[in-house]
């Protein structure tokens, strides 16, 4: 079976710190593919090209609300709708590892692929005038000069809570596959049949359920200890006889 590299993002663990966003920007603006342009970074109306963004949603109605931090980048769909519409072949899905990439030297900047992506994962670089998107740090994950442990996307290495797993989701033994399988990993907007490779792990609430027999002593069904006479003022109380 062919490889399909992907990210698995645990929404239960993400704290919305944007470390993945900044490390992504740092790595990908410094590479040989050229910068990710920013305009007005310190002005009133800053804008720029990013591969990855962390969004925040509020679920429910006060007071029963929950904050969900939601990192969003290209999902490297197994059936990517953005690829067949590209007129030049600049957008392609690599056969060897399933990464969806844009050849910046072939892209004519017609933006049609961004129309064809239901997730809004593609952004035009306003200065280079080509379409850009997450590459899963393709210039880093195969770099033999890096130590083995660092051959991962920049966002995965930066995440302080390890909310991001990286791996081959076609390999059932990979940590990413196991997490999807065992922790209820799901895909975004499954209704469009894009089969995103990236998966999300749901929020999981830790709750404690008290059963009635935990409140009432199992071995004392008559509750006789509640009926014992109170000790007289001079007599030792229970606190004085801790030896038994």
């Amino acid at each position, binding site marked *: 079976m062919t490889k399909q590299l992907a990210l698995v993002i645990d929404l239960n663990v993400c704290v919305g710190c944007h470390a993945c966003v900044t490390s992504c920007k740092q790595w990908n603006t410094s590479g040989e593919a050229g910068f990710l342009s920013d305009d007005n970074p310190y002005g009133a109306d800053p804008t720029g090209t990013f591969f990855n963004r962390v969004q925040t949603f*509020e679920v429910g109605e006060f007071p029963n609300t929950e904050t969900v931090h939601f990192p969003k980048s290209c999902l490297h769909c197994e059936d990517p709708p953005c690829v067949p*519409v590209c007129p030049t072949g600049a957008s392609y899905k690599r056969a060897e590892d399933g990464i969806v990439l844009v050849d910046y030297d072939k892209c004519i900047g017609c933006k049609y692929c961004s129309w064809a992506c239901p*997730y809004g994962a593609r952004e035009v670089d306003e200065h280079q005038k080509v379409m850009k998107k997450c590459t899963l740090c393709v210039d880093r994950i195969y770099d033999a000069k890096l130590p083995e442990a660092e051959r991962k996307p920049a966002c995965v290495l930066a995440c302080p809570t390890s909310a991001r797993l990286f791996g081959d989701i076609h390999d059932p033994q990979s940590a990413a596959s196991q997490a999807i399988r065992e922790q209820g990993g799901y895909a*975004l907007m*499954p209704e469009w049949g894009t089969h995103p490779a990236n998966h999300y792990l749901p929020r999981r609430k830790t709750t404690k359920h008290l059963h009635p027999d935990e409140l009432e002593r199992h071995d004392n069904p008559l509750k006789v200890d509640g009926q014992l006479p109170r000790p007289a003022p001079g007599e030792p109380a229970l606190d004085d006889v801790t030896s038994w």
Partner: protein
Amino acid sequence: MRPAWSVILLTTLIGAGQGLFLALYAVDAYDAARGQASLAPFFVAAAIAASLALVGAGLLASFFHLGHPERAWRSAAMWRTSWLSREVIALPLFLALVALYGALHWLGSLQGALLAGALAALACAALFVCTGMIYACLKFLQEWHTPLTVTNFVLLGSASGLTAAAALAAWLQPALVRGYVVAALALGALAYLGRLASLRRNARLRPISNLASAIGVKHPRIVQIAQGAMGGSFNTREFFHGRPREVVRAVRWSMLALVFPVPALLLFGGSQSAPVLGAAFLLQYAGLLAERWYFFAEAKHPQNLYYQAIA
């Protein structure tokens, strides 16, 4: 979606140019069928020049849509999968065949012209389908993902071309005006009905995606707090028209008035004067600009679910 002027001009101009060619070729083919030539050479030359000019202007406008127009030649590569690529092939092919058709006509080779015209008509049909399918094939843009998108491109383009043909005929070959006016009215009415049908359909659409499926949290009430950027981004610029509701409504009403009713009044007036029919074409074209603007503005991209609050 944000209406881009380059694409609005491209689709409306080539539609009118294609319709004009079809109007001319229909008379030519009818003449051939009854074995009697009726077309005045100057009318043929003017119609072909105008058709080429309209389609050429549309092609020119499309270049302004590209970030790298110097690489536009690459866009013919993926014709196996991409309707945009197919359009990029069909458009110059249509231009070349219409030019050939005109040249053969001018040289007096009527049989050759008829054959070249038939091929040009095929290319014209292909170009109509490609242009419409560019939008209709995007299944999650529910407003566009309907056969009505393609039929409306064909009908609106043909109607405007016929109005242009009526105006040209009034100037150069008045004998043809009556036929063209009747045809322009018929096609215009059909196109108008088609557009009304798509408006009706789109008003009843229920979005397939919602915030729950977009972030995968099963809850009826989800509100976006932040979209990950303090200012705008490509996603907030490209996929929202950003106009107040009043503007959208005004464009919609201008489209409903100008695409057919107003030009129809001018056509119905029975006037054979070129200025009146020319005005009818210009008004109808303005209506088509409004129609195409609204076509983009009314399409709601599911990515907008992720970009509802900027903070």
